[in-house]
């Protein structure tokens, strides 16, 4: 294992290459520019291709073409660009193509701000495009986790023949941490050869990759995808449960918000307050069980902490809490970071004062 001190965006770019990524197309947008910049020289080194697309729209469609050849393909962007990619992501889902999309999110809506925010939760988990499809959404909280999730993202994408989204805010994209880089994966086209349009290699029958289907086949495809989503809920949920055993208050937070919240929780524990945390690592499939199985005779409240206002994960939380205890929320928005004091005071006020 190789250790390196790396910036978030560059770490996931390197992890992608080591995970087998050999094609990238993207368009400049802050705060994810270090991903295309890094891959512009790194991919040619390993025999891959880098294209700076004329737009996010073109870039996701280049990824669509590359993915169709069985090549592990990546694109990255930030909120406004992900909106533009929505069409292409929907087509990936429809044509059953594996690809990985990274959203280094920033303040929104609209052009918003270029500072970090977690305001793309609903887009990522509920509506990444038209037509009612889902993708797995990975939300790392450390750069090591980002590296590990990115490294293995194509395994999920190819298994399910569906795109995978990595949702990271601009803060994680910009910070530097020590990461352990996994070994370079040996590439084969085995996973995709039965359907892709790579070299024929003696294949007799033609392959058709299509985002349009006759009604009956489309219904079948959607039903099949529905089953896939159920399988994800059963097998692929990733979550960190922190100090839940005796918790009277449970913070739910992901990504950078969870890191800040953890600091506050540790301080409150020192003060004798029984606070724990559920940190979804997969935002979809959402860790429903972690919330559902809580002992609501002991838990007095759930606190949703997100770097966005209003909180977006709250609906998913409340669906599991089912009114068994109050749900509170705290956040900052517009590109203003959550800070230790603010989060500590917010949790503290709820825990000690019982107010919102």
């Amino acid at each position, binding site marked *: 294992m190789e250790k390196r001190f790396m910036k978030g965006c560059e770490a996931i770019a390197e992890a992608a290459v080591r995970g087998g990524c050999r094609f990238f197309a993207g368009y400049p947008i802050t705060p994810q520019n270090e991903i295309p910049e890094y891959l512009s020289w790194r991919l040619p080194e390993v025999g891959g291709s880098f*294209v700076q*697309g004329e737009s996010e729209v073109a870039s996701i*469609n280049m990824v669509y073409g*590359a993915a169709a*050849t069985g090549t592990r393909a990546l694109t990255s962007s930030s909120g406004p660009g992900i909106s533009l990619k929505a069409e292409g992501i929907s087509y990936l889902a429809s044509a059953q193509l594996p690809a990985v999309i990274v959203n280094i999110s920033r303040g929104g809506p609209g052009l918003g701000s270029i500072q970090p925010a977690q305001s793309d939760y609903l887009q990522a988990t509920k509506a990444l495009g038209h037509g009612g499809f889902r993708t797995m959404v990975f939300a790392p909280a450390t750069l090591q986790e980002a590296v590990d999730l990115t490294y293995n993202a194509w395994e999920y994408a190819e298994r399910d023949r569906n795109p995978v989204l990595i949702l990271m805010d601009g803060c994680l994209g910009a910070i530097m941490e020590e990461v352990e880089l996994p070994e370079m994966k040996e590439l084969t086209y085995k996973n995709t050869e039965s359907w892709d349009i790579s070299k024929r290699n003696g294949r007799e029958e033609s392959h058709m990759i299509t985002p349009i289907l006759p009604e009956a086949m489309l219904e079948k495809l959607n039903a099949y995808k529905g089953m896939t989503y159920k399988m994800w809920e059963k097998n692929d949920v990733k979550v960190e449960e922190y100090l839940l055993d005796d918790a009277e208050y449970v913070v739910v937070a992901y990504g950078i918000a969870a890191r800040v919240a953890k600091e506050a929780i540790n301080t409150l524990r020192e003060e004798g307050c029984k606070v724990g945390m559920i940190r979804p690592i997969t935002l979809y499939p959402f860790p429903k069980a972690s919330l559902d199985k809580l002992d609501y005779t002991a838990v007095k409240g759930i606190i949703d902490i997100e770097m966005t206002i209003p909180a977006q994960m709250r609906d998913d939380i409340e669906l599991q809490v089912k009114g068994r205890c109050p749900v509170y929320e705290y956040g900052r928005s517009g590109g203003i970071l959550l800070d230790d004091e603010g989060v500590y005071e917010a949790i503290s006020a709820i825990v000690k004062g019982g107010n919102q």
Partner: protein
Amino acid sequence: MAAYKRPKSLKEMPTAYCPGCLHALATRLVADVIGELGQESNAVNVISVGCSALNLYSWAGDDIGAAHGRAPAVATGIKRCMPDRLVFTYQGDGDLAAIGLAEIMSAANRGENFTVIFANNQTYGMTGGQMAPTTLIGQKSTTTPFGRDALSTGYPMQMCELISVLKAPAFVARYALNTPKGVMDAKKGIKKAFQYQLEGKGFTFIELLTNCPTNWGMSPLKTFEYMETNTIPYFKPGIFKDVEVQE
């Protein structure tokens, strides 16, 4: 003298095109050339949105459906990953010259080594005959019921002229499919474009003037007359760029 067999790149079933539609002829010409070059199992048809999408019913080789206007981006992704395959997009005028302008111009400007087959019938056939970027001045459509008016809708987009001013493209040509001579020339042009691609010369662009009997509201043969008197004088056939000739 000219023996002819149905090309292998077409499925053994009727096309989904209307009677007399030159989309079908354009598709057949591409299939003919691919057969002559022995590229049946190597070609990838990047099919776009509109009536061009009906290619999905006819094409027997590998193919992939692209989003509206995005075929040149999809082809870029394929060709960069699989440089040995013969890749072409099959696009109509709404797809290529309106919603997909950024993709076509940028792919051409990058000199991507694939071929674009552009069927220009001056209408959105699939959606019922609305005004296309290539609809002629005065030509009626369902969104220009009194004829296209330059004052409010501008002028028909001349794609060969636009693309041929770029430095990168290797071959840019336009052909009209309403006469045997035009069809023969088109076939030669398509063959040249594919050969250039196989030789790695770069971006090649073939515009084929086609018709839409259904939405123009004419019999198939009447559309040929209309093309001769209206379409061809504005969209002049010819070779706009050929790297071999310039050098």
